[in-house]
């Protein structure tokens, strides 16, 4: 790494960033903190309530359920997307004209607006007019994601895998293409099996990009809102109501500003702490 020189004037270079981000982050955050400790009955009259909303949220069954759903969802999609993305990256051609073709086609889902993703999967999976819905029902399963929680979960997860696995593929592929040929040649001469090549060369060399992939996928899936909202609307019942959907329901649907603000802060804190834990766990060995 570069050894840096101390220069306080560098602050001038970061100032625009600080101003812009602070405008967008600090003022709204202060608003949220403000709401989270107050009660209102409208007309802009507020009463100080202390930590009442925090206690209420932390003890609320509804919050526990959404959190559990959120963790389950994020866990499942991480367990599917990371290994799948790595496997696809491993199977990609290393060079040649097909690389560009593969990358362009794979990146396509990443650039589709999220509500279009939801709408697209809606009309793709509807049991009466959707291709997927028809196919699954044709195979003899009774599949209807608007009525059955299990089918709704299956569709939501499949949609997320469709939407985001490519990000893992792109990152893993970048990690793989940075490995010099000499490593593969040495491994061949050493008589290493393809599993050993993966375990001792490819996986260690991909570690950094995979850390980024896991972090990005964790954060984004934990904040997921638009796609499941458009696809299932959080239902049937509350079966796919993840944290963000629940939060928007409370804040904009019921206009319960205090509880919503308290929930926001807890939500944000959970993401921060979990991201930090992921990061430390994955980078543990680097620090030695």
């Amino acid at each position, binding site marked *: 790494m570069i050894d840096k020189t101390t220069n306080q004037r560098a602050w001038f270079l970061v100032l625009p960033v600080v101003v812009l981000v602070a405008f967008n982050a600090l003022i709204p955050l202060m608003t949220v903190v403000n709401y989270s400790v107050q009660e209102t009955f409208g007309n802009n009259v507020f009463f100080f309530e202390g930590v009442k909303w925090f206690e209420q949220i932390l003890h609320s069954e509804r919050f526990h359920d959404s959190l559990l759903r959120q963790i389950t969802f994020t866990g499942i999609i991480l367990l599917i997307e990371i290994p799948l993305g790595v496997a696809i990256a491993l199977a990609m051609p290393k060079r040649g004209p097909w690389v560009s073709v593969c990358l362009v086609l794979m990146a396509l889902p990443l650039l589709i607006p999220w509500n279009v993703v939801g709408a697209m999967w809606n009309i793709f999976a509807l049991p009466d007019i959707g291709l997927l819905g028809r196919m699954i029902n044709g195979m003899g399963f009774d599949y209807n994601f608007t009525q059955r929680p299990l089918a709704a979960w299956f569709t939501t997860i499949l949609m997320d895998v469709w939407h985001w696995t490519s990000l893992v593929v792109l990152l893993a592929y970048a990690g793989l293409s940075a490995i010099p040929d000499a490593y593969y*040649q*040495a491994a061949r*001469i050493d*008589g*290493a099996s393809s599993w*050993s090549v993966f375990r*001792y060369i490819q996986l260690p060399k991909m570690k950094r990009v995979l850390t980024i992939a896991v972090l990005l996928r964790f954060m984004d899936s934990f904040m997921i809102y638009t796609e499941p909202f458009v696809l299932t609307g959080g239902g049937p019942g509350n079966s796919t109501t993840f944290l963000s959907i629940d939060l928007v329901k409370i804040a904009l649907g019921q206009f319960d500003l205090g509880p919503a603000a308290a929930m926001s802060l807890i939500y944000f804190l959970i993401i921060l702490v979990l991201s930090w834990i992921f990061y430390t766990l994955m980078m543990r060995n680097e620090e030695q």
Partner: protein
Amino acid sequence: MAKITLDKIRHSYLEQPESPADWALKQLNVVWSDSGAYALLGPSGCGKTTLLNVISGLLRPSAGRVLFDERDVTDIPSDKRDIAQVFQFPVVYDTMSVYDNLAFPLRNRKVPERQVKQRVHEIARMLDLEDLLHNRAAHLTADGKQKISLGRGLVRSDVNVIMFDEPLTVIDPHLKWQLRSKLKQLHQEVGATMIYVTHDQTEALTFADQVVVMHDGEVVQIGTPVELFEKPSHTFVGHFIGSPGMNLLPCEIENGLPSFFGHRLETVRAVKPPAGASRIEIGIRPEFIRFADQGLPVEVVKVNDVGRYRIVEVAHQAHLIKLVLPEQLPVPERSGWLAFERDKTNVYVDGWIVT
């Protein structure tokens, strides 16, 4: 251990090679005798690494055969050839300890763990890695890593040949010398055939008993360092080896003797050039030219003092000739005559030596 024979090897990276320039290796016939120390010398892009990869089995040649002793191994994969290769940049398995790195090739071949242990310790002792055996390989310095790459080759007792592909590129200068003498010492201890690829003549000449010089996908000479120096079989060798390189003077043949701008070089042996030769040159190393009382008249252009000797540039007509003179020998002020050492002056026709 084995003798390695390259029989009419040709290789091209293109599917359909057309012009001669499409061939990375033009046509090679080389025999590497058992337990020799070879250097493969040539400029970047001359096909050294390609040749190495053909021997190690990482590349299948477009044509020709590779023999280990009398066994044809052309189609046998690298891991079955019992060879070892050390690459330009150190290749270590980052997540493993030094011990596990050294044990890796043995474990892949299902060698019993007791033997592995004994062998790894033996090799670690040879390479002075004993104290580091339980460190993570990723935390070693470049020369330490390069030693591990080397150790992984040596750890197998049955290696036919160990190949080095410019292994000292990333090593600090003061460690280069150490590691090079270590290699030389290992060659004597282990007795395996070693092929050392480099573009640095000093490395090649100090390491090897036999030097193979490559140019443009062809082997232009195989010989001892002394042979390469005194009797380069191709003008490329003369130019590439030695500093400064060999002087090349265009000449014509008159009555079997070469003449340079009408000046007959009586000192040179009589030669008979083949018919249809387009380019005839005299090659003489700067070390084998002296000032004399008669001979080729020249003007002194420049004198360069480089310590124990002087490099003198002189000109005949517009042709520059370089001399390397020991310090004590005098240099004429402005003009003088040159004498060429008879045995060390060679005639080249179209680049190749005429004997």
